[in-house]
């Protein structure tokens, strides 16, 4: 009987693993669709390689750091190399790590050297992600933090562990590498650089949404008791509602602000909802989920504009807004909307405080380490391709090929 339960848990987690893996295809399509045709193959290659490097390195060392016996007062797990043991857990965690890693390729797209991107990938899989992960999921200090009656940072499926970590790396990387040529005028006005395939971008969003039905419900890590069954059913609902409402709200806001409903921003809106609900998907009610979606759908529009127009950081696909900002927002909102510990349900500010501390701590960790990593890469091998290479396109210059060899591309771009 207990055996059966273990098998059922395993089936569930592996089902979820496959779906989360498939999110790699979603990221690849979103990132390539939202950027230019001349860099399409390069983005693909970066997505493929961060997954490959991540899979390898997380097995070699990352998983141990994240889930090894707690040491140094909750700061890091005791690493072992070449993990062998609970393979189901290993593979499930591997695809989560790879998700965090792949977020950056979007924000640094169209100008980052391929070799430098590989170095970054190595670093996030080897220590940036595993250590943040250890704090929250690996039994580290955040998982046992206790304030005002509430205990433990709540990040059910990784709004912070995965998305906020990835989003902060994306922020640091994009800030250090600087904007694409032509993105800002001399006066600092932002220019539009349209993506080359909204259909592929949209396909990517649908794939990601699909994958999220592994990401969130899979994080229950079990499907063998009545409670599990109830929980995973509810998580499907909260996940879906948040995404749907976020997309709707983003569409409405862009319609008002820009006169027309913006397609690519609305696609980002759906992802914003998904990222935001990830932390609280198990803790909030459907109504809470809808509200979280509505907030995320609002935040994303202003967030992306803020990054683009105020910070003047060039993030071609909106990765910082979607994963960074909405990852943080979603995590914080657990402190409001959690049915068992949230402020709005009369449980005081304890949970909210823990959530805030967690976000700040992880933010500080990632900003610092990512800054060091990207600066080091920049000073040594260099982060950015040459101006000439950027103009011609990374496909030809970095990989010697064209992604769309049979199609006439627009050489002339007047704006």
């Amino acid at each position, binding site marked *: 009987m207990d055996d059966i339960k273990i098998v059922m848990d395993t089936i569930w987690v592996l089902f979820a693993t496959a779906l989360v893996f498939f999110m790699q295809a979603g990221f690849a399509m979103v990132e390539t669709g939202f950027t230019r045709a001349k860099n399409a193959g390069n983005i693909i290659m970066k997505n493929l390689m961060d997954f490959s490097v991540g899979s390898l390195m997380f097995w070699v060392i990352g998983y141990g750091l994240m889930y090894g016996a707690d040491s140094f007062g909750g700061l890091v797990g005791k690493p072992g190399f070449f993990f062998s043991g609970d393979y189901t857990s290993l593979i499930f965690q591997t695809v989560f790590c790879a998700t965090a890693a792949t977020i950056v390729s979007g924000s640094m797209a169209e100008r980052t050297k391929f070799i430098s991107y590989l170095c970054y990938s190595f670093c996030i899989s080897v220590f940036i992600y595993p250590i943040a992960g250890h704090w929250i999921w690996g039994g580290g200090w955040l998982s046992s933090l206790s304030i005002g009656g509430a205990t433990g940072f709540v990040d059910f499926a990784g709004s912070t562990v995965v998305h906020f970590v990835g989003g902060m790396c994306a922020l640091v990387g994009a800030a250090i590498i600087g904007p694409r040529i032509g993105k800002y005028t001399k006066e600092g006005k932002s220019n*539009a650089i*349209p993506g080359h395939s909204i259909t592929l971008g949209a396909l990517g969003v649908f794939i990601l949404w699909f994958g999220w039905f592994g990401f969130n419900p899979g994080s229950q890590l079990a499907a063998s008791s009545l409670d599990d069954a109830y929980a995973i059913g509810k998580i499907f609902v909260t996940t879906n509602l948040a995404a749907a409402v976020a997309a709707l709200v983003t569409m409405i806001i862009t319609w008002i602000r*820009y006169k027309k409903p*913006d397609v690519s*921003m609305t696609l*980002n809106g759906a992802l914003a909802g998904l990222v935001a609900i990830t932390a609280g998907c198990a803790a909030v009610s459907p109504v809470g989920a809808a509200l979280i979606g509505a907030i995320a759908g609002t935040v994303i529009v202003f967030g992306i*504009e803020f990054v683009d127009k105020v910070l003047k950081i060039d993030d071609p696909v909106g990765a910082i807004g979607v994963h960074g900002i909405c990852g943080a927002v979603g995590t914080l909102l657990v402190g409001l909307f959690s049915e068992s510990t949230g402020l709005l349900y009369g449980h005081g500010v304890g949970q909210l405080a823990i959530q805030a501390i967690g976000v700040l701590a992880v933010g500080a960790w990632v900003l610092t380490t990512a800054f060091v990593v990207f600066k080091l890469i920049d000073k040594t091998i260099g982060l950015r391709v040459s101006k000439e290479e950027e103009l011609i396109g990374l496909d030809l210059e970095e990989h010697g090929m064209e992604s769309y060899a049979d199609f006439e591309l627009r050489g*002339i771009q007047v704006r």
Partner: protein
Amino acid sequence: MSEITKVDIITRPSKIEDLKVALNEIGITGMTFSNVLGCGLQKGKTEYYRGTEYSIDLLPKARLEIVVCEVPVDLVVETAKKVLRTGEIGDGKIFIYPVQSVIKIRTGEEGVKAL
């Protein structure tokens, strides 16, 4: 030998089908079409992409080139005007160029016979 001329019509892509039919009717069979981008009196517009304003300055236009000799240029121009004129900005322009010679590769014929 009568003079050979090239008539170059730049207009809305959506009118090309009608134009082709009309020119066929006046006896013109050889034509060459291409896509171009134009800017003229007709203005583009301003849109938003992900919250960033941008303007579309160049409009897609179609070009039709016809090298004629026996069919009088005036007839071609009149036919084109008839089909294309809507009176609204964007109707396009016709340019007329001199041609020195024409050769039909398949037969090697030159000049009028090559048309």
